[in-house]
């Protein structure tokens, strides 16, 4: 079916895109990777990473010469739930 694609990604879709990039990178993604993978500007990336940290679905791991983000257990569970909902909505022809 030819779906009417939204002009802009929803906040939820951006959250999921960011989290999926982290998951794809073996749960250890550097900010630059997330920036390109989720197709975000630097300012928006910082904003969304902060929001996701506040929600408790990702955590920042930083040491002297490295900084990366990883999914928390809550984040992994959220992505699994989202995947099921995405498949459910997709089965009816609805995009999330």
């Amino acid at each position, binding site marked *: 079916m030819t779906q009417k694609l939204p002009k802009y990604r929803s906040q*939820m879709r951006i959250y999921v895109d960011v989290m999926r990039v982290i998951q794809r990178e073996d749960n250890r993604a550097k900010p630059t990777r997330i920036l390109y993978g989720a197709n975000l500007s630097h300012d928006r990336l910082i904003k969304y990473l902060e929001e996701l940290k506040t929600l408790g679905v990702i955590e920042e791991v930083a040491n002297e010469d490295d900084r990366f983000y990883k999914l928390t257990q809550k984040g992994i569970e*959220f992505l699994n*739930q989202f995947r099921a*909902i995405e498949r*459910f*909505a*997709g*089965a009816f*022809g*609805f995009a999330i």
Partner: protein
Amino acid sequence: MRKILVGPLWFVGFDSLMEFVAFIIALAVAYQAFKGYRLTKQKTLLYVHFSFALLSAGLLIDSLAGFLGILARTLRGAVAVTVVGYAIYFLAQALAYGILIFAYVSQTRTMSTASISLWITPLLGSVTLQAAQAPPIKLLGPLVEYHPVSEIVLLFLVFYITVQTGLNYSATKDGNALLVFLGFLLLALSHLLFILTPVGAVLFVIGHVLQLLGFVSLLAMLLRVTSSK
């Protein structure tokens, strides 16, 4: 509106039992849609939730009315109970399918949707008007009286959804989309057979079996989407 439709006497009770199973499946779909809405705040999922919640409510009421009708067969109120049950069932289904159609129209708004709407609406109107003039069909004495208008209305509503889900499957070739398409196709066929019941009472039985299979197809989709990682 269809008043009472019980089909062959040996089938009395089985139809209510099948509707009760369908009620549980519709409720499960409504619950999954609500879970999705809570997680994503997507309005389309809320529409799916309301649609299936209404479907399940209608199925439950019709099923219980059928059971009550059987229990109170000797009482004068039995017919009234089943008539009210069917009326609520029809209204709930019409509203449920209407909400789902609204969800499709609000999300897709494509040429295909628009063109379908353009021909389905006048067709629905003219067929309904013609059918409204037809006298109620009576079978098996005073207990079985049925007007085809309600089933024709439901058939067209479900047909629209079947087309949408069919288009979705043809675009995605996804197994879950196929199950949803099959589910609504079977529901559409069941309403067609309910209309054709005067031709043969066995069509009423087949219609109920197809209706149940339609919901089983939706259950299969639900199990697939919730179980696979």
